[in-house]
C-alpha cells in the first residue's frame, strides 16, 4: 500500500475517542514476510527504535533514550508536519532481534485503535534470508458499546494490517535486489 493511500484511510476517520477507556474485545494481528537478506542485515535497518524511516508512511521522527527501556519516539506520518503517533519502548533484546513498544498518544482519526502494543522481530531463515514478524495487540477506536463502522473491531484490524503490510512490503522491496 502506498503511503498516500494509507493516510487517506487513516484520515477518513473523524470521531473523537477517550484516552483510557477501551472496547470489550482486544484484537490481535500478526503479519510476517520473508526478506532476501540475512537477519543481521535486516536488523541493522529496523532494529533502531529511533529510526523508522524504513516505513513508507513515516516522514520524520524524533525521540529520546535510544534503544533503552522507556525510550520514546514521535512519528510524523506522510509529511514532516503530518499527524503524529507517540510511542514508548518497553522491551528490547538485540540478541533475539526483537523489540516491543506501545502507543502512548494517537488520535483515533489517525489510527483507529486504543491500548495498542506491538512487537517487531527478525528471525533467521538461512544465510541469505530472514523473516520479519510484526505483531500487534489493541482495542478498537470506539470505547463504548455499538461502535460506528469506522471505529469498530474490523476497522481497527484493517488499519493495523495496512500499516504492517506497508512496512513489510517496503522491506521486501528494499532487499529484493540482494
Amino acid at each position, binding site marked *: 500500500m502506498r503511503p498516500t493511500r494509507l493516510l487517506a484511510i487513516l484520515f477518513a476517520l473523524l470521531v473523537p475517542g477517550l484516552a483510557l477507556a477501551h472496547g470489550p*474485545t482486544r484484537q490481535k494481528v500478526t503479519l510476517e514476510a520473508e526478506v532476501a537478506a540475512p537477519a543481521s542485515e535486516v536488523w541493522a535497518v529496523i532494529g533502531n527504535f529511533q529510526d523508522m524511516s524504513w516505513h513508507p508512511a513515516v516522514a520524520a521522527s524524533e525521540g529520546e533514550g535510544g534503544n533503552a527501556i522507556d525510550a520514546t519516539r514521535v512519528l510524523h506520518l506522510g509529511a514532516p508536519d503530518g499527524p503524529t503517533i507517540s510511542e514508548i519502548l518497553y522491551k528490547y533484546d538485540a540478541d533475539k532481534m526483537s523489540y516491543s513498544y506501545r502507543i502512548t498518544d494517537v488520535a483515533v482519526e489517525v489510527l483507529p485503535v486504543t491500548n495498542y502494543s506491538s512487537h517487531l522481530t527478525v528471525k533467521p531463515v538461512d544465510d541469505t534470508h530472514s523473516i520479519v514478524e510484526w505483531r500487534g495487540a489493541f482495542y478498537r477506536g470506539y470505547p463504548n458499546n455499538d461502535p460506528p463502522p469506522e471505529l469498530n473491531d474490523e476497522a481497527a484490524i484493517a488499519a493495523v494490517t495496512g500499516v504492517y503490510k506497508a512496512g513489510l512490503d517496503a522491506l521486501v522491496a528494499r532487499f529484493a535486489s540482494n
Partner: protein
Amino acid sequence: MPAIERFLSLAFIPALAATPVAAGDFAFVTNQNSSDLSILDLDARTEVKRIEVPGKPAGISVDEAHGWFFTVSPDSKTVRRFDIATATEQSETTLDGGPIGVAVDGAGGRIFVSDWYNARIWVLDAETLEQRGTLETGSAPAGMAVAADGSWLASADRDANRVSVFDLTTLELRHAITVGERPFGISAGPDGMIYAANVGSNSVTVADPATGQVTGTVEVGERPYGIAFAQGAGFVTNQYGDTVSVFGLDDLAVEATLDVGEYPEGIDVTEDGRTIVVANWFSNSVSLIDAASRTVTGEIGTGDGPRAFGHFIARDHGEGRP
C-alpha cells in the same frame, strides 16, 4: 458417577469409560478471539474438549457446588450457564449493557455480572439467570471477588480507580476504596484481604474489606491483570511484561518474576495449591507454574485469545454432582 469421569467417558474418551479416573483439576478457558472455550485436563496436561461459546467470551466463573460454570460474551452481551459434567449449555440470557466479568455467590444461589459501560453489577439468579437487581459501582467495573465466607463482594471499578465492597446479606455498598490507577483484576486473598491489580500504575493494592482501608501496595510488572494465591504467595500476571510476579503475603515483597507466554491474563490455582495456571492471550496457551518451586513446568495449547477472566479451575471430587 463423578462429574468429570462421566464427562470424560461420554464425551470424548470412550476407552476410559471402564477405567477409574482419578480426581483431578480441569481448567475452563474462554478463548475470546475464536469464540469458544477450551477444557483442559491439568493432570494429563492436554486439551480434552473445545466447545462453541459465541460472542467473544471473556468472563468465566466455575461453581463447583452446583457443578456449573458461567461465561460472559461481551460482544453479544450474553451470559451462559453450562453443566460441568456434560459441558453443555443449560441456560442463557442477554443483558442490555456491557457485561464482562462474572462471580459466583454459591451459597446464595446468585451470580454477579459486571456492566463495563453502566457502572453497575447485575445480580442474577444462578439457575435461571433472571435478573434480581443491580448494584451501583464506580465507572467501568470489570473483575469481581467474593469472600470465602460469602460475606462480601468486591468489584474493581477501572475508570474510577476504585474498589467497591458490597455486603452480600444486605447488598448495600459497604466501602468505596481508592486504589491505584485503573484496577481491572481483583481477588480475595487467603488472608481475607482484597487484592486489586492496577493496570495503570503497575501495582497491586491490598485493602481490608472490613475497614475499607488500604493496607499495602506491591509494585509488580507492566500492566498487571490477574491475581491468584498459593503457598503463602500472590501470583500476578503482567500483560506487557509476559511475566508473573510472585510476592509474599506476609511482607508484600516480590520474590520472583517468571517468564510465561505473551500477554498473560487470567490466572487461577488448582485446589491442592500446587499449580498456578496462566492464560497467555497472544500465545494461545496456558502456562503451568509449580507454586512451591516457582518454576514454569509446562504449557497447554488453547483456542485463539485465551482470557480466562475469573475463576476458571474446577476440581472433580469424585463425589458426583449434587
